[in-house]
């Protein structure tokens, strides 16, 4: 079994991340899924959420929707809005919470509302982490 996956996170502005990892969790529209080596080829639409990278550098990346492609021992995440969580400053997180909350309030269907609320919660978690120990771990995606 192949241990390593090649992960690429690409946004329209730049290639955000390109490295070998052991596992990566992606926020698929139908639910999060984790990809490890020898995964079957999958193409999935993403909802806004966080990509969690394990092995190599542990990393959390915020993606604002997009899609992921798994093929040939490689994961490609194409996200319109992608940023490393460690690049967010506190003020920016607060702003992101405010926008996400607005979206949650404006959402019409229950599913949309849930999805948006999840983002609000993730950002709030992120904020507490930043407050306590710097941007390292975010829980409760």
């Amino acid at each position, binding site marked *: 079994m192949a241990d390593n996956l090649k992960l690429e996170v690409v946004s329209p502005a730049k290639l955000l991340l390109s490295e070998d990892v052991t596992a990566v969790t992606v926020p698929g529209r139908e639910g999060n899924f984790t990809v490890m080596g020898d995964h*079957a080829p999958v193409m*999935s639409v993403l909802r806004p959420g966080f990509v969690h990278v394990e092995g190599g550098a542990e990393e959390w990346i915020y993606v604002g929707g*997009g899609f992921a*492609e798994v093929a040939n021992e490689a994961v490609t995440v194409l996200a319109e809005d992608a940023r490393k969580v460690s690049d967010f400053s506190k003020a920016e997180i607060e702003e992101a919470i405010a926008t996400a909350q607005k979206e949650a309030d404006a959402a019409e269907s229950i599913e949309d509302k849930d999805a948006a609320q999840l983002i609000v919660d993730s950002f709030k978690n992120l904020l507490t982490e930043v407050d306590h120990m710097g941007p390292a771990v975010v829980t409760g995606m």
Partner: protein
Amino acid sequence: MPSLKDLKNRISSVKSTQKITRAMQMVAAAKLRRAQEAAEAARPFAERMDTVLTGLGLAYKDRSDAPRLLAGTGKDDLHLLIVATADRGLCGGFNSSIARKARDHANDLIKQGKTVKIITVGKKGNDILKRLFKSNIVDAISLREVKQVGYANAQEIGQKVLAMFEAGEFDVATLFYSKFKSVISQEPTAQQLIPAKFEESAADAEALAYEYEPSEEAILDDLLPRNVSVQIFRALLENGAGEMGAKMTAMDNATRNAGEMIDKLTLNYNRQRQAQITKELIEIISGAEAL
């Protein structure tokens, strides 16, 4: 015949013009590098998008349940031309060559009896096209205030276009922009956005059996609108790099022309100065001889 003083004034004015054009050339060169980097950084995303869409798109092209963004509305009576140009002039034929391409296309369509609507992105294209197609321009977008074109700008335009499509305001959308080939060569290009077009040759390379989540249709539905924005974004970046390239060349020419003019004027100036000295000498000598 201009006097010595006139010549002197003209030389100094051309000299200061030359200084300005030289500075503009250097600014364009610096901006060009940044614009080129931005265009290169955006390439992986667009390329990936292309491969995924081409595979899916070709499989779906002939099916009856293909999304409208892919199959079109079944008519081609209403055409939308999205003309992307720069917001500033002083870059040679850059803007006018894009506008010319769009104009020819629009004239062709009008001759065939189709309805043409135009959205201009960038002020210069609007300036040129509104002289000819004033009633056809439905929207003019200016990115003048935007320092660095971001994906959000393209998305905004893309959403506008998609909303128009949903409302049935056009059947075919074509994007006009300038492809950045090199610093000295930009190629005005027309690209059909809606219905989406794919190159057949690129398709058969990847024939992996993907599992699609949620489903092929859902992914296609999701990707096609995004693709519109991505293509517009790419066009804007290519334009940005092209504009700077064209400006650099234009300003380089202007600087050289100013140099030539200064040489010519200086020669003229010196000739006249000598002629005047000779004239004064002759006056003195003939005055002395008369005594």
